[in-house]
């Protein structure tokens, strides 16, 4: 009996000692079908993101299939629920790779839920495409790790949007003393890093940096401090509700500086909740907010199709999923009839531009840059709505 254990242990150790060879693998492609997998938060704390993103992916899959598929292959999309729990995301990823044999992971949701299973996807040698998070891990490549070539992203990081906003406002609107009020967490850290770097790049003096806790409702001290220090442009390193709180507090104190916000605030809720206090605030975003009433052409067709399928108006979270799959489809078409992980990688790194139907900045990748986008738009709240004031902005002159 003991010998048998020993034999198994030795066999196990031998399996265990295999080096993790970085090989790209192609699975999930037949003559008629491409299997794609994703995990979304459908039941956890960020399901307000996960559910519409999953719907966006489904809508895109339906549209692609209705149009005849990709080089004759239909897309089979498998959606798993991670509940924003990294452990479940890991298991869901393994299920997708092993049981469903997916060709690529497409637009998975969240930072922690994407980062924990990422090594599994890479070890399996399949592509990890366009996770809905702007964390650096999802696109930054380590030259020593060939498997890092499998990572791609198409979302402008918080850091970039904040720099773009500050850069644009200082250069075009004549502000001289920017300061920042930020949420004290990972997101806020991106914003403060961007603030420090941009202030240095613009060669102006760094001003007040005031933080608040996630979920805070009182911003009196932070706003008063910024006001006392002579700040004339407040960068909002905050999410919708806190952004509204900050601009409202400033109004109450009789102070009217400029405000510039990043993607978490560039959502329709901000002008709705902020009402007249939100007027004039600048915001930075990647995709223009959908305006159902004013939409025409392809965007209108998209809105109608979404409403018909899911019974509600689409929002920008839907576009995050929709564009993910559409970007995949564009490059998979380029890769041609012989679709493999290698051929898709070559197509993506070819530098060809993908332009979406929403007028976003074009997406393109290269061998050294797997973050598909470097530009964003600047908008301002006018008449209770976000209205675009400048497109395709970057922070590098």
């Amino acid at each position, binding site marked *: *009996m003991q010998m*048998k*254990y020993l034999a*198994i*242990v030795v*066999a*196990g*150790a031998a*399996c*265990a*000692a*295999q*080096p*993790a060879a970085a090989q790209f693998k192609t699975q999930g492609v037949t003559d008629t079908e491409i299997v794609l997998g994703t995990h979304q938060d*459908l*039941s956890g704390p960020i*399901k307000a993101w996960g*559910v519409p993103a999953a719907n966006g992916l489904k809508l895109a899959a339906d549209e692609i299939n209705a149009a005849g598929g990709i080089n004759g292959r239909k897309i089979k999309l498998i959606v*798993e*629920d991670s*509940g924003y729990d*990294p*452990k*479940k995301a*890991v*298991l*869901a990823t*393994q*299920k997708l*790779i*092993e*049981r469903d044999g997916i060709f690529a992971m497409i637009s998975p949701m969240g*930072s*922690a839920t994407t*980062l*924990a299973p*990422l*090594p599994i996807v890479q070890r399996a040698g399949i592509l990890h495409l366009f996770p809905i998070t702007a*964390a650096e*891990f999802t696109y930054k490549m380590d030259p020593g790790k060939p498997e890092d070539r499998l990572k791609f992203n198409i979302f402008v990081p918080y850091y970039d949007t904040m720099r773009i906003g500050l850069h644009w406002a200082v250069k075009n609107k004549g502000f001289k003393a920017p300061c920042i009020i930020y949420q004290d*967490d*990972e*997101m806020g*850290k991106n914003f403060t890093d961007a603030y420090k770097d941009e202030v240095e790049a613009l060669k102006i003096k760094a001003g007040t940096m005031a933080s608040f806790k996630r979920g805070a409702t009182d911003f009196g001290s932070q706003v008063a401090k910024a006001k006392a220090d002579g700040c004339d442009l407040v960068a909002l390193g905050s999410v919708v509700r806190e952004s509204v709180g900050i601009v409202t507090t400033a109004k109450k104190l009789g102070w009217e500086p400029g405000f510039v916000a990043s993607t978490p605030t560039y959502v329709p809720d901000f002008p709705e909740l902020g009402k007249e206090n939100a007027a004039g605030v600048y915001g930075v975003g990647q995709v223009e907010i959908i305006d159902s009433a004013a939409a025409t052409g392809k965007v209108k067709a998209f809105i109608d199709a979404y409403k018909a399928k899911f019974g509600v108006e689409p929002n920008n979270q839907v576009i995050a999923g929709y564009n993910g799959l559409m970007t995949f489809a564009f490059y998979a078409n380029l890769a041609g009839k012989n679709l493999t992980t290698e051929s898709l990688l070559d197509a993506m790194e070819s530098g060809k531009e993908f332009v979406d139907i929403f007028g976003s900045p074009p997406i393109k990748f290269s061998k050294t840059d797997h973050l598909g986008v470097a530009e964003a738009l600047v908008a301002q709240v006018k008449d209770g709505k976000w209205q675009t004031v400048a497109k395709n902005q970057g922070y590098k002159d």
Partner: protein
Amino acid sequence: MHQPVKTDYSQDLRLFRTAGQVWSYAALAVFLLAAPILFGNYLLSQVVFVIIYAIVGIALIILSGYTGQVSIGHAAFLAIGAYTAAYCQKQGIPFVVYFVLAGALTGVVGYLVGLPALRLHGVYLAIATFAFAFIVEEILARWESVTNGNEGIMLALPDLFGLKLGDTGFYYLCLAVVTTIMLGAINLLRSPTGRAFVALRDSETAAKSMGVNPARYKTRSFAISAAITGLAGVLYAHKLSFISPEMFTLSLSIEFIMIVIIGGIASLRGAVFGAIFMIMVDPVLATLKDDLPGLVANVVSVLGLNGGGAQEAVARVVNAPGLKSLIFGLIIIFFIIFEPFGLAGRWEKIKLYVRLFPLYKATTFKRQKMYLKSERGR
């Protein structure tokens, strides 16, 4: 209950009481050792999570089940273990060293958390451990030079004596750890320390009058429980390969409590049952979601009804996002009301039923005591 006739004092010291136990555990051992050959990575991964949760379950059963102390801060101990591993791996410290270090460090922290336990009972102790968990979460987010703050840290699979572990190797590592801890816990609970824990749980006054020092044993229980959780934390960090403060929240602590409630608070075996349940519910639901609608449709159409409609209806039910929370809630209520000793308790009853058939009577367990009440015997 069934007790073999004792003919020898050494029988009391044996790990396995009956020949049946020896054979069934041997079969389990063979099965677990062969698991990597039998299972794919997906199932193996589930087993690894079960093992990690079982280790935490053992820790919590020692503390709550055997010493009668409540903790809703065990996610914090897990976090301390996990971050010790992440930090040490970055510094190039070998796995064996930081594995032990993580256990020791968490043990010391557990001892300190145990100090308020000397003065607090029941819900107040729960609040104290809850506060502790919050403090740890805050420290993890703030102490950026060590923890990398909210950005989190990535880890690689560990190197064991220069051997780079793959998924299979890591599985065997976890299996070795859980076996050692399980044997250690069994031995602990039949040592004087373990007896003292039980005495404290049943009646602090009585224990004191028998010369058991509550301060010493309560803190010791906290330290041991925390240390074991810390070891689980090391494995957890390596398994997830990425950790950040937002993972170690109250809901994780509550998941751990659910392990012991569902598994059975009064038996170490319960930790394993509870862990299996907690981990496997999701994959089973995922499988159901894929296969059940088609299955039902087939059955319905065999009966000559509208298969497609049934398929859609079933698909809608199994895809409902809140389904899992509902099932969990119902199960917990069910266990607390009908089976306070959890799956382990149910298993004992089934075994007895089979053994005594047809003479089994439900009243055998009528007078079982419940130790979940922390105020008991004060």
